[in-house]
């Protein structure tokens, strides 16, 4: 028996990579779940952001927590960086590998392990797709509340890492409010559980510190999400306005009146036009802007809030107010909103989606400035955004083939960030900092603030090996970002 095992081992080993790091990873997982071919690495060198220049090392597809731990231990032994990866739908470059790290693609850890109705939570693996989780829960009378527009593809692990939001996060909060516990593999391969199912877990909120850390503190392998009861009543309202200013003022007024709808999304004229070309959602194309508002809850409260919203809209010169009459109409209205980015290709082949937040009362002013800026730079911009929480999403449209355009797009992007900060806003509402906004961090935080953020990172990852070169700007991070842009010598060039 021993001899047969040895022979088997011999043949197994023969098939392993000649690269010692890769061979070790293959031994821990399997030959076919650790990829090192250039095309595989290229495929995992990008996310949905516009950032080029990523360079992946070996790409691993673990299936168990133990395998993730093994990868981390090997990485530590070889002093090699690691980057966790979900679906790669991130828009700030969070999943773009710098310095040829081992890419840990979590997509094969995609089981819903347990739905615990009594405790109103579900334990899921990080590779579970956001939409699939909600669909799975809905017949049980529940859903998972955060619904990023990318929900058909993005993973819960990616949502946790980015503290993602979505249209329906206005009343009930973003990912952080819906994740009660996480299991995390640390850079040294040890396994911790942060948070808990009990009401007020003892100790520091390491769960809260991990959520939104963009894959820099460890790899989450199991997540306990909160189940939200399906609402008894839903009312979806489409309100059109002559101008975006009027729409934005309505948003402010609704909130000022003490109404927090479940969702309150805004779309400008260009957005409406391309959506209607793409899929007929039922939006009027001859108006300046629309608001898509949804109220949820018990029937009378819903009716009351909906009525008040309509009155406020009328006071702000709404051109038309349409209530979804049935679930089919409601779905069409939402489908339009969620396909806006894809529909933008009717205007230009590429887009750069920005994400900043401003105080709601500043929405109208900031949008005017964004539009002026785009016009002055001869760029087209579409605005489709989470208006209820002041989360702007200007979509700059361009053709990457046209020489010099990308530079102009980046320059306008930088200006949008500045305008938002000047209005009392922040760098990002849901996409994160990644590599996109690293260098703007110093505009929002002082050197001491950033030093303290790095202390947090350091406590989890003292060698700065997990997703190095992200979030903190040069000079504040424990990794030297400049060197990460150069591939390590000898391998994977």
């Amino acid at each position, binding site marked *: 028996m021993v001899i047969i095992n040895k022979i088997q081992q011999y043949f197994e080993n023969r098939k392993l990579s000649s690269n010692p790091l890769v061979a070790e990873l293959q031994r821990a997982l399997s030959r076919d779940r650790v990829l090192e071919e250039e095309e595989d690495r290229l495929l995992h060198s990008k996310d949905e952001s516009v950032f080029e220049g990523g360079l992946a090392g070996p790409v691993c597809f673990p299936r168990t927590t133990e395998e993730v731990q093994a990868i981390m231990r090997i990485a530590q032994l070889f002093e090699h960086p690691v980057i966790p990866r979900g679906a790669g739908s991130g828009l700030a470059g969070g999943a773009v590998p710098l310095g040829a790290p081992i890419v840990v693609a979590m997509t094969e850890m995609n089981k819903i392990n347990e739905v615990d109705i009594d405790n109103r939570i579900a334990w899921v693996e990080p590779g579970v797709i956001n939409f699939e989780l909600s669909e799975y829960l809905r017949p049980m009378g529940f859903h998972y509340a955060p619904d990023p527009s990318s929900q058909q593809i993005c993973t819960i692990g990616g949502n946790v890492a980015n503290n993602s939001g979505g249209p329906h996060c206005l009343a009930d909060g973003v990912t952080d409010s819906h994740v009660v516990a996480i299991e995390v593999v640390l850079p040294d391969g040890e396994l911790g559980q942060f948070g808990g199912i*009990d*009401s007020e877990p003892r100790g*520091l909120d390491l769960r809260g510190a991990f959520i939104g850390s963009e894959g820099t503190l460890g790899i989450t392998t199991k997540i306990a999400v909160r189940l939200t009861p399906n609402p008894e009543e839903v009312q979806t309202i489409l309100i059109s306005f002559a101008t975006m200013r009027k729409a934005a003022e309505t948003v402010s007024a609704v909130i000022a009146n003490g109404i927090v709808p479940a969702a309150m999304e805004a779309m400008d004229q260009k957005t409406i036009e391309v959506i209607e070309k793409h899929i007929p959602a039922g939006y009027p194309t001859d108006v300046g802007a629309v608001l898509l508002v949804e109220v949820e809850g018990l029937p009378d409260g819903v009716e009351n809030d909906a009525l008040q919203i309509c009155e406020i809209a009328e006071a702000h010169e709404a051109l038309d107010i349409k209530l979804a009459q049935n679930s089919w109409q409601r779905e069409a209205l939402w489908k339009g909103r969620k396909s806006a980015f894809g529909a933008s290709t009717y205007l230009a082949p590429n887009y750069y989606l920005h994400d900043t937040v401003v105080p709601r009362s500043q929405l109208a002013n900031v949008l005017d400035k964004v539009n002026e800026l785009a016009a002055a730079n001869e760029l087209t911009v579409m605005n489709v955004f989470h208006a209820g929480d002041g989360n702007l999403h200007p979509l700059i449209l361009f053709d990457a083939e046209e020489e010099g355009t990308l530079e102009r797009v980046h320059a306008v992007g930088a200006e949008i960030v500045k305008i938002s900060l000047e209005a009392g806003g922040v760098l990002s509402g849901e996409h994160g900092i990644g590599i996109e906004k690293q260098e703007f961090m110093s505009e929002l935080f002082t050197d*001491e603030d950033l030093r*303290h953020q790095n202390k947090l990172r350091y406590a989890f990852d003292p060698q700065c090996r997990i997703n190095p070169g992200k979030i903190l700007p040069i000079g504040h991070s424990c990794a030297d970002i400049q060197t990460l842009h150069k591939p390590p010598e000898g391998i994977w060039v």
Partner: protein
Amino acid sequence: MKTPFDSLIKEFVKEVGSTGPVAIEGGKTRWNLHGLPTAETNIIRAPSGIITHTPEEMIVKVRAGTTVMELHKDLKKNGQRTSLPERGGTVGGAIAVGENHLNMLGRGRVRDAVLQIRYISAEGEIITCGAPVVKNVSGFSLHKLMVGSLGTLGVIAEVTLRTNPIPDMSTWVTASSKTPQDIFNALYKPSAVLWDGETIWVHLEGHVSDIENQRKTLLNLGNFEAVEDAPGLPRYRWSMKPSDLVQINRQETGNFVASIGVGTLWADRPQPRKPVDQVSEKITKELKHQFDPHGRLNPGRTFL
């Protein structure tokens, strides 16, 4: 945008200084939690007062020494409130302790309400984390780490909180019940469901006619009648899995009041210590070392 600090916060920075043990006293409602400060500790108070309340943004910026009562009294003028518990303590204290309001299901969690914190570091610098907007993922969530940190990582000086509207109506109803979970399940988002083994108290908030309808649902399940207020709560606070609340061992707890669907339990006896996850312990120690290498912030208090 980096915003300046007012003079009271600057004074406070001087008071905290950069050497010697220091602790902040709030309302002293949770003074004994996880240990007492050592004898030689300099005990000071955080500055108080509301800095700005922007009702239309549903945001309030307040100095840490303000009492929660004061804060809520002021917010009420604009029909708003926060999720902080009203127990006679200060805003800074409530955040440092991190315990939720009795009506957490209706008001939300304390940790979800905290948008920005400014704290004084062990070195005596003012550190800003988070931001005064309702949605933000710019950088590491240090402000989340501060909630429930008992002031062991930094001295909380100023806080920006999310506010929420006070509902049109709110009422407590009570009945005797042996099946609290069924009652909880029959309701849509109640604010609180409390149970002492014999009697159940339900807090309903919202639109007047919705409350009437919820009340009707309850009448099908028991002899519910209106009461003034929540029941008195025993002394010790337990943190449990919501599903464990229906099989409480009274020998272990003594008299109790349980928050159904939440997991908090108030009992006559303290909760036995649960083992701390070793990895969490390691990181907690490292964080303390990083943020307060000489152990000057709230010495004597520890989670470990």
